[in-house]
């Protein structure tokens, strides 16, 4: 009887370990995305600071492909602000996802630990018998 339960437990353990690996990979991806967005946010904030320092009639150009296109200061300002808003929202969303995933990861870890303990107790009992 015990050999089949042991096999079942082992299979279960393997599945759970795979799940855990997947979650950890996702968390890594999330970290990378967050890093990218944080860098962009910082750059945009620097640009906004620089734009705020300008006089009303300053000439602002936007690089589109290889050409510089003249742009309204107000428009550029609004554009950068919108981008910062978007990136901040995206970062918040990633944060929420990350928290969720970390919770899942901890749960998986716990179930794996429990499974391992059960396997060990079964095997210890077998060794005695």
């Amino acid at each position, binding site marked *: 009887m015990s050999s089949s339960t042991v096999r079942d437990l082992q299979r279960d353990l393997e599945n759970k370990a795979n799940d855990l690996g997947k979650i950890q990979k996702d968390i890594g991806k999330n970290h990378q995305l967050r890093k990218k967005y944080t860098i962009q946010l910082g750059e945009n904030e620097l640009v906004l600071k*620089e734009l705020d320092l300008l006089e009303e009639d300053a000439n602002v150009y936007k*690089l589109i492909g290889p050409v510089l296109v003249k742009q309204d200061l107000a428009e550029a300002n609004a554009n950068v602000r919108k981008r910062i808003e978007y990136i901040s929202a995206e970062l918040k969303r990633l944060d929420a996802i990350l928290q969720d995933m970390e919770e899942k990861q901890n749960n998986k870890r716990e179930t794996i630990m429990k499974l391992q303990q059960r396997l060990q107790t079964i095997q210890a009992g077998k060794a005695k018998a």
Partner: protein
Amino acid sequence: MASSSSRGEMEKMGIDQLKALKEQADLEVNLLQDSLNNIRTATVRLDAAAAALNDLSLRPQGKKMLVPLTASLYVPGTLDEADKVLVDIGTGYFIEKTMDDGKDYCQRKINLLKSNFDQLFEVAAKKKSVADEAGMVLQAKVKQLTAATTS
């Protein structure tokens, strides 16, 4: 995490835990070192830009010069006007500035980078000492363990 753990706390940790702490600290030290290097290269670039501006502002209008098209191809040209410069402020935006404003921009950026560099340097030094300490405690523990098992 236990990033600020003192030596006393480290002594209480198991070898596996210490190993993990050391690895984590080493990783962070490397990351910080990379950031410091990036800041350094950025500062060098800005310094070059500031020097170029300075150079340009010293030349009179109509001055003949050779303009680099590639690193090895130069074409003759004359300086039209040097009191307006275009500054790349990032994310594809360029701003027309006067020469003085341009110089001021470079100086401001350099100062910003310097203060960031100093802050980061302190953090990196602290992390490094944590990593070193963890390594030392770890070694001592391993030595103790091997001595206990062989005797």
